[in-house]
């Protein structure tokens, strides 16, 4: 029964990892930017939420309505200025700039907010309540909600990209920027919108992690970025539903590892990631178009 529990918990935490991963996947898919600052930005979003709740006393869930647009605006602004300038130089410059940004944010958070951990909505019924399946399996409502949110975000993104007018424009710019520009698309604006969407999902991921666990300045890279990346690689680069599958596989691996020995949790996830890299480098669901 303990193993069944581990698998169920793993699937549910997989939703959280998929939520981390979709912004990373989107930014790479559209503008070929590997956002090394992804996790640190999620922590920033979480800290903004904590600040807003502390200052204005709005209900915890309302903070989403403020933080997501704020992060989306930040994403648009960052893409149009720093990231676009770096992209105009080279892939190498972009990587270096994103890594620099990641380290500056992480050390900035350490400097201003100390290494203390902070949770979001620790006394909220949504965060603390759970229900029982049988006698041994206890499922937190929060994980159900996060999983549902991840599925909704991924489904919404998939629908937006494949069906809507603007989604088609984004895909056109992603596939062939030059051709899309010749057809009159403003690729810089399209990149900005894609970054805004990605940063919006980053905000969701950051706040969700703050509710699920505790945020601290190093959580951005130690947990969020590396787990998001592992989920993307396990699932298959460039596939949104693959990301969910990747997140679930990572979650199950971690929970089974934790079942063996609590200190194996993170390690087990990484070992599965490395195994996938060896056996199936294109990921579980291969689209074959991006590498």
């Amino acid at each position: 029964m303990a193993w069944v529990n581990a698998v169920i918990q793993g699937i549910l935490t997989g939703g959280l990892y998929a939520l981390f991963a979709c912004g990373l996947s989107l930014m790479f898919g559209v503008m070929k930017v590997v956002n090394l600052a992804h996790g640190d930005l999620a922590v920033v979003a979480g800290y903004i939420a904590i600040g807003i709740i502390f200052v204005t006393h709005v209900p915890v869930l309302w903070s989403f309505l403020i933080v997501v647009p704020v992060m989306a605006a930040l994403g648009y602004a960052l893409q149009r200025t720093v990231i676009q300038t770096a992209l105009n130089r080279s892939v190498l410059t972009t990587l270096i700039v994103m890594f620099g940004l990641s380290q500056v944010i992480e050390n900035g958070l350490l400097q201003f907010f100390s290494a203390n951990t902070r949770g979001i909505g620790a006394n909220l019924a949504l965060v603390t309540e759970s229900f029982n399946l049988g006698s041994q399996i206890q499922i937190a409502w929060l994980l159900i909600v996060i999983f549902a949110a991840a599925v909704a975000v991924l489904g919404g993104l998939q629908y937006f990209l494949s069906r809507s007018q603007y989604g088609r424009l984004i895909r056109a710019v992603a596939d062939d920027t030059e051709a899309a520009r010749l057809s009159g698309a403003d690729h810089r604006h399209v990149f900005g919108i894609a970054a805004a969407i990605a940063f919006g999902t980053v905000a969701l991921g950051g706040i969700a992690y703050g509710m699920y666990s505790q945020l601290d300045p190093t959580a951005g890279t130690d947990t969020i970025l590396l787990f998001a990346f592992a989920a993307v690689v396990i699932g298959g680069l460039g596939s949104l539903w693959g990301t969910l599958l990747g997140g679930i596989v990572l979650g199950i691996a971690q929970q089974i590892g934790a079942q063996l020995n609590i200190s194996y949790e993170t390690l087990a996830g990484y070992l599965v990631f490395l195994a996938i890299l060896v056996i199936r480098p294109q990921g579980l669901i291969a689209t074959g178009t991006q590498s």
Partner: protein
Amino acid sequence: MTAATATTPAQSAPAVRVTRSQRNVAWTGAVALIIVAVLGYLPYLVYSGTTTILVQGFIVLTLASMWNLLAGYAGLVSVGQQAFVGLGAYFVLILAIHGISPFAGLPVAAIGCGVVALPLWWLVSRLRSGYFAIATWVLAATIMLIIERFSSIGGGTGMPMPGFAGLAPTLLTAYTYWAALAVTVLALLGIYLILRSRLGLVLTAIRDDETAARSSGARTGLARLLVFLIAGAGCGAAGAVLAISQLQVQPSAVFSISWTAEMAFATIIGGIGTIEGPIIGTAVFMVLQQTLQSYNAWYLIILGLVAIIIALFARRGLWGLVDDHLSVRLFPVGYWLHDIPPGTGQLPGS
């Protein structure tokens, strides 16, 4: 008319001479020797506080030079080099536990890290550019988690370095300093010789235009593998020096991402893709770190911001600015093209 143009001799046979340097490099070599000799004599002249700071500088310079070889020449942006810093430190620790002097363990650690780099390359080379970067990061995190499992080498909290009993503190500081100096000199000399070799030619070609290099038949894959192994060994040696100078090994400290941040920022600020860049960058790094050391992480924040600005607007770094105005190379690794008629020209990418 046609006969007149055909007989213009300068057009048909351009008279050029190719050299590796613009002027005689003998004096550069002599100056380098004098600098190394002075640095080597330093423990007799200054207090141990100064040599301790210099040891830090040597570690950063070795790391930055290795990262420069990876990112600046081979186009491999690794953000997982802390894996080798940590492994180097642990190799020395494990050997010391078994009774081998840490100073004797240092070269073994460097070679060990170079050997470990081979299977790691096999894992991460499947991914390109950005995903390669994060994969190296995951690898470093994984290696740290595995090492933390072994309580015999200190587990998650680490342990003090054995093997220094009976060594006077002043002597230990001096030995540590000489070891750090030797590692740095060997690293720089090694990189200089590599860049002058055939491998260096391939690396310079990759740096300037990878597609062109590959289509000209350069074996870019092999060159990258070799660079990854060399950088692994170099960062391992720096990690070994770190372990000796800190007198203890703690997993979260030796496997810290800050090492990669420091080596990357020093390289970018100094000038990526030149041997001189990391030297200048390390000097800037040490000055900032020593000035701001009472303000915790501020030096990394400032260095990061400066590195971002330089990467965006002055890609060749501080050394690039010097080079633009004075056209000097301390390390003659390129080729210069001299017209026999007055006036000199430079080959692209030298």
